[in-house]
């Protein structure tokens, strides 16, 4: 009855549709005739003569499915992954054609690489804009001449090992990710090959160092980074960026967010990075492809956010960097940016050495949180 619907159509298109309908009808007939015999499981292909007679009115239908006819379908893995036998040992050696590589290629070249570039460009643009509008964030009351211990020697050491490896890994990673787009047109691929080779070696060897430093970073800093109820107020006031004052403890809610993002994304980057770092364990291509995608996306996000941290903690805010270099912050800086913490530790304030005399000596090992 499907045929009759299209009998009225003339010309080539009509005939083509008619042929299509005929073949569809054939497909519909085939399973029903095969299901008719009393033992359906064995009868479908076993009773050759019966099924042939059933198909005698259908000119092109094969009575028996050729066992070799599915070869290319199987090679292309249309019906799911199929692994063959091979004398050659190696990762995925038994797979003739891997179909996932093309998806990976498109995701990487058309999504991850361009959007990574845009993300970093946007972050840099926002920071430049912020600098132009707000300038350096000053200590409003000026320096007090009193200093408070903020980070112990070991806390600073952990921060800088993690921080420096992070920055080197970030730069070498971006070189590998965006170098072909941005650097090869400038310097040619022979010169870039040297830089890329160096970047890859450094990236591979420094990665595990970062993984270990991340563990220590977590242990040393997690105590004061748990979110508290009053952090909601800090977010509501935009951290005091747009006027008004936002109360904060030793770390404000923005710093806490950065801490947890760095730790969580750091774990993702570490796990995927270790997978990529050791191809000798014979992990298959799909695992590696997935790891590389996740590694790149997570890393570029955490690297982009780190620009904000690096800007605010160095040139963006007066009096911020010294607590991570000397260990001490100015009392007025503490009062303006971490007032709740200042109230706890203001008794530990001591006179700052004059700027002429170099600051010697370790700030001591006592916990600066006042606890």
């Amino acid at each position: 009855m499907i045929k009759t619907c299209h009998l009225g159509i003339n010309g080539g298109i009509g005939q083509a549709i008619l042929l299509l309908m005929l073949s569809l009808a054939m497909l519909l007939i085939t399973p029903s005739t095969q299901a008719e015999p009393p033992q359906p499981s064995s009868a479908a292909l076993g009773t050759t003569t019966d099924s042939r007679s059933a198909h005698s009115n259908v000119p092109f239908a094969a009575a028996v499915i050729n066992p070799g006819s599915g070869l290319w379908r199987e090679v292309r893995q249309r019906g799911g992954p199929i692994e063959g036998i091979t004398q050659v040992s190696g990762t995925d050696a038994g797979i003739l054609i891997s179909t996932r590589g093309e998806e990976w290629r498109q995701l990487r070249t058309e999504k991850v690489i361009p959007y990574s570039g845009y993300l970093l460009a946007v972050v840099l643009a926002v920071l430049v804009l912020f600098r132009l509008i707000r300038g350096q964030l000053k200590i409003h009351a000026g320096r007090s001449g009193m200093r408070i211990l903020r980070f112990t020697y070991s806390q600073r050491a952990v921060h800088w090992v993690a921080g420096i490896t992070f920055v080197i890994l970030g730069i070498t990673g971006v070189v590998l990710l965006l170098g072909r787009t941005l650097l090869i047109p400038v310097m040619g691929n022979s010169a870039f090959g040297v830089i890329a080779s160096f970047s890859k070696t450094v990236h591979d060897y420094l990665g595990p160092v970062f993984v270990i430093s991340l563990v220590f970073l977590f242990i040393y800093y997690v105590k004061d980074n748990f979110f508290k109820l009053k952090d909601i107020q800090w977010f509501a006031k935009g951290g005091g960026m747009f006027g008004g004052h936002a109360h904060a403890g030793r770390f404000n809610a923005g710093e806490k967010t950065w801490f947890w993002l760095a730790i969580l994304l750091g774990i993702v980057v570490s796990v995927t990075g270790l997978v990529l770092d050791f191809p000798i364990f014979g992990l298959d291509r799909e695992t590696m492809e997935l790891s590389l995608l996740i590694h790149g996306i997570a890393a570029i996000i955490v690297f982009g956010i780190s620009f904000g941290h690096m800007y605010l903690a160095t040139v963006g805010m007066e009096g911020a960097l010294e607590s991570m270099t000397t260990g001490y912050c100015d009392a007025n800086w503490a009062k303006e940016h971490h007032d709740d913490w200042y109230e706890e530790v203001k008794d530990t304030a001591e006179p700052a050495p004059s700027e002429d005399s170099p600051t010697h000596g370790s700030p001591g090992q006592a916990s600066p949180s006042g606890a």
Partner: protein
Amino acid sequence: MANMKFYCDAERCIECNACVTACKNEHEIPWGVNRRRVVTIKDGEAGERSLSVACMHCSDAPCAAVCPVDCFYTTDDGIVLHDKDICIGCGYCFYACPFGAPQFPESGAFSSRGKMDKCTFCAGGPVETHSSDEYRKYGANRIAEGKLPLCAEMCSTHALLAGDADVVSDIYRKRVVNRGRSALDWGVNYQKGSLNLPGK
């Protein structure tokens, strides 16, 4: 200019692995690296077929598209080659390649990937032709001598074809026509009750 291609005739390949051996020997390929391999599908079952596979020298090569240092290039003969002086051994070409052609020797303190190695269609590489440097890095350059890849030239059943795509497809087309439809049926018995019947 020619457009060089490999084609493996699945009805002729007998899984003798001579192409693999010839390739390894011709180019003195290091341990653990195989530019060519033979894969058998449905081993021991009805419809078993073997195919010899290496770099297929794609027109739109995925390896070249994902290479972070852009070390791949296509010759005038349509052969995809790469520059080992630029390669950094990242492995991205191996992830992107459908055929698993890129191979990596282990190198360094932690057995990371060395410079990628793959089938060159016996066309050497981007250094002086027939120099010792070329042989050490890329293997023999038979194309420069007017010869075709050794794997195909010595294939005993002429299953593996190599050469200009037009010529290769002409040869294969003639084979298919002369072979008839029964070729795919080899090894299959349609008699009732036959043990070779599929699905039994």
